[in-house]
């Protein structure tokens, strides 16, 4: 049946080719088709530039816009009001000549304070979500890919030894602590190296049995974390740690990775069964590379989209913390504490709550729109043929 070839292998032809574009241009064009996403991107860029400019313009010895300049005689002025230059010293006058966004109860220029606060909102959003996404991808990837692999009793035992060693050490029982610490590490390494071996003379058989799967461990950790009312967990941690913007970022990040983990795990469970993963294995590609280079790009699009929304949530969380007085310590302005300071004057000076509130709303909204557009731009099937 097959002795006679039905058709010859075709000659190599060079037919007319569709013009090729770089990947970046292609993605941008796709993004361009979604008008709302484009609006989101433009606002995001404007926000980014404002935040960076804000840092430059409001810091240093003699800042262009001084957010900390107190002018008690000029307090609670509405937006666009002119300063009374007769009562102000030369260096106290607002740089723009008018109070663009009004002044607060201490006569500080709200425009300068908003500029300073933009950087905090931006970094809180990005750093917190960055931490959450990295932790989430790592945990989700491991749970999804190695999910079947079990954790044996000996490994649990060695981790317990290790932890009790650390605790004893911290309690002051240095020798006992160090001993348990060392034994814990040693037995953990032993349990890892003995994995593939057929017989292990050091340990009784029941210790080598699987207690629960790796997937169970990570997903139950996620469940536990989700059970915590995370805002109150953040409040507690922030109350215990020194008040600093970096602590807040880290705490927000470490309490919001669970969604990403679930996403990545779910994607990985289906990707793991795909033929291209078997094909990569058959080519001799290593496990680590399969996880991070072959499977991750397939799982990353929903993660990125959810993380843009996560940035919005992180900005809101920081604003909420600042509003409650647990956020960035006072002389430094953030949108949250401008809002919180303004609440006392909400009927006399509504712009003090309105301006930061609207700013937060716009930035959060633009991130959500941007995320939607990104989802389309990252899908290779929607790219131009």
């Amino acid at each position, binding site marked *: 049946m*097959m002795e006679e070839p039905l058709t010859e292998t075709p000659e190599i032809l060079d037919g007319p080719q569709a013009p090729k574009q770089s990947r970046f241009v292609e993605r941008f064009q796709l993004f361009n088709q979604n008008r709302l996403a484009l609006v989101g991107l433009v606002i995001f860029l404007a926000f980014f530039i404002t935040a960076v400019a804000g840092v430059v313009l409001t810091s240093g010895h003699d800042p262009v816009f001084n957010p900390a300049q107190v002018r008690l005689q000029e307090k609670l002025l509405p937006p666009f009001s002119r300063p009374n230059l007769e009562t102000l010293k030369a260096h106290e006058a607002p740089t723009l000549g008018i109070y663009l966004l009004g002044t607060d109860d201490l006569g500080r220029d709200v425009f300068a304070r908003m500029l300073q606060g933009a950087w905090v909102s931006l970094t809180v959003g990005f750093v917190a979500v960055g931490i959450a996404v990295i932790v989430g991808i790592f945990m989700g990837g491991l749970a999804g890919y190695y999910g079947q692999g079990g954790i044996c009793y000996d490994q649990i035992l060695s981790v317990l030894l290790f932890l009790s060693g650390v605790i004893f050490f911290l309690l002051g029982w240095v020798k006992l602590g160090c001993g348990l610490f060392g034994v814990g590490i040693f037995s953990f390494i032993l349990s890892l190296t003995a994995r593939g071996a057929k017989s292990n003379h050091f340990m009784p058989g029941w210790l080598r049995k699987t207690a629960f799967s790796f997937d169970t461990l990570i997903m139950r950790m996620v469940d536990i974390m989700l059970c915590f009312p995370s805002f109150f967990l953040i409040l507690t941690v922030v109350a215990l740690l020194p008040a600093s913007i970096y602590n807040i970022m880290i705490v927000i990040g470490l309490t919001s990775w669970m969604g990403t983990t679930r996403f990545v795990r779910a994607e990985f469970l289906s990707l793991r069964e795909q*033929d291209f993963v078997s094909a990569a294995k058959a080519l001799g590609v290593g496990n680590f590379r399969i996880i991070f280079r072959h499977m991750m790009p397939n799982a990353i699009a929903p993660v990125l989209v959810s993380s843009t929304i996560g940035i919005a949530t992180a900005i809101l969380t920081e604003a909420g913390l600042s509003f409650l007085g647990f956020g960035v310590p006072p002389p430094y302005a953030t949108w949250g504490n401008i809002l919180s300071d303004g609440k006392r004057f909400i009927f006399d000076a509504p712009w003090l709550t309105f301006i930061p509130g609207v700013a937060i709303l716009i930035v959060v909204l633009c991130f959500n729109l941007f995320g939607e557009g990104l989802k389309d731009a990252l899908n290779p099937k929607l790219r131009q043929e």
Partner: protein
Amino acid sequence: MRTESPLLSTQDLKVYFYGRDKISRAVDGVSYNIHAGETVCLVGESGCGKTVSALSALGLIPSPPGKIVGGRIIFKGKDILALDDAAMQKIRGKQISMIFQEPLTSLNPVFTIGDQIGEAISTHEMIGPDALDNRCVQLLKDMGMPSPEQRLKDYPHQLSGGQRQRVMIAMALACNPDLIIADEPTTALDVTVQAQILNLLKSVQERASMSILYITHDLGVVSGIADRVYVMYAGLIVEEGNTRQVFGNAVHPYTRGLLASLPDREKRGQRLHNIPGTVPNPAYKPEGCPFHPRCSHVVKECKSVLPDMIDLDEGHRTRCPVMV
């Protein structure tokens, strides 16, 4: 039988899948040899253990639930079942590579063809980016792809099924392996493309003098490309021999049944033969010869004793004492 030692020799391989309360004996004592430069076909119905026995040669049995419980796989004189993961990775793709059944899903949708062929090479070789590009273009050219430079920048969904399978073959050939395992590479393709791919495989094999283990259920394909044929049924080899022996002089009732169910010009207008029944569930195989419930030549011993392979001719062996 040839005297030099085979490139790949599987001896009494047993692969079981452990379920909650049952054991599926997917491969239950399979032995086959592949010599250098030879095309060997594994033939059998769906679910008879062809793919599992081939995947074990690459150490790709999903475990758990699968487990290789017995036997040896000797590749170039080394037992590869005893190798650890790192050593196995050096063999995969470099010395033994695989072509999968579904070219659609075997390519990663988010990378270009060039990325993927490039990775197949750079996983095993240190090579600069320009040299890598040239190698990829040359590979695609060898595969008969039109305008290979442009194709390198394409994504898998932009190619047709036949083109994708050519890319898969290019990836499998990237490091000049000694053995290619082709798992029904043409099943998902239409007949004309199927013929092109088979011709391609044959010409590549002649050029690079590599061995092919070709897994299929299509006897038409087998007669076209195979040097030797192993017929599998329910996790066992039931008949082996060179193509002429198996096609011209089949002994085992299962092989005969398969051959009889091929459409043929002389059988025009008649009903096609079919083998009654289905392949037994690998968890609940019948006692004795696994084929006896479907066999028309069944005798009493078939129901209790699993027969051994019987030598018939030079290299022709079968597992049916009744028909000999």
